[in-house]
């Protein structure tokens, strides 16, 4: 059996894949994230654990599956955040973000 490699990280160029036209911006995850965080997360900045680039969460790519949302880094396509909602809980996996910075209101 083939050993698991980083195969799933190597993505084809944006535009090739069927999910590409479904791509949304970080904004699309703001509602679900507001069930976990009070300040708006999309105005904050996240550092991608995959490639180290930092950018506004609003500028990340969001794929909404009906099951939940997957937030990916536009540079390396790695998963930065995963959010899912069940009737009683909201689940967040943030291991793809090394850090998240939110500035206070000025």
């Amino acid at each position: 059996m083939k050993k698991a490699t980083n195969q799933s990280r190597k993505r084809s160029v944006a535009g090739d894949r069927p999910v590409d036209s479904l791509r949304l911006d970080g904004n699309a995850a703001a509602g679900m994230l507001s069930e976990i965080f009070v300040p708006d997360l999309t105005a904050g900045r996240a550092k991608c654990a995959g490639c180290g680039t930092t950018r506004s969460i609003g500028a990340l790519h969001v794929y909404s599956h009906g099951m939940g949302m997957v937030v990916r880094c536009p540079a390396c396509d790695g998963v930065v955040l995963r959010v899912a909602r069940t009737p009683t809980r909201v689940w967040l996996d943030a291991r793809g973000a090394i850090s998240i910075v939110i500035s206070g209101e000025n």
Partner: protein
Amino acid sequence: MARSDGGYTTNVPLADLTNGKAWIAFNYGDAPLPPEHGGPARLLVPHLYFWKSAKWVRELRFMENDTPGFWESLGYHNYGDPWREQRYAGDE
């Protein structure tokens, strides 16, 4: 564990894949399975909830021990039997 393009994974017991209970689909009608429907190849497990029928499948890894996949580790039921309405973790 089925691993799909995009890093999605889903775990299914071997007994639920064998003896005609599941397919790897790569054609629909006379034509290759289109990408919107999971082509070039997808897993089809009709007796379990839809997220077990992984689209764009790249690899099936046989494991000794069960491990939760992508949605199973984020609040969704580990097995996913629709007859018992096992949609979310904790549903019996």
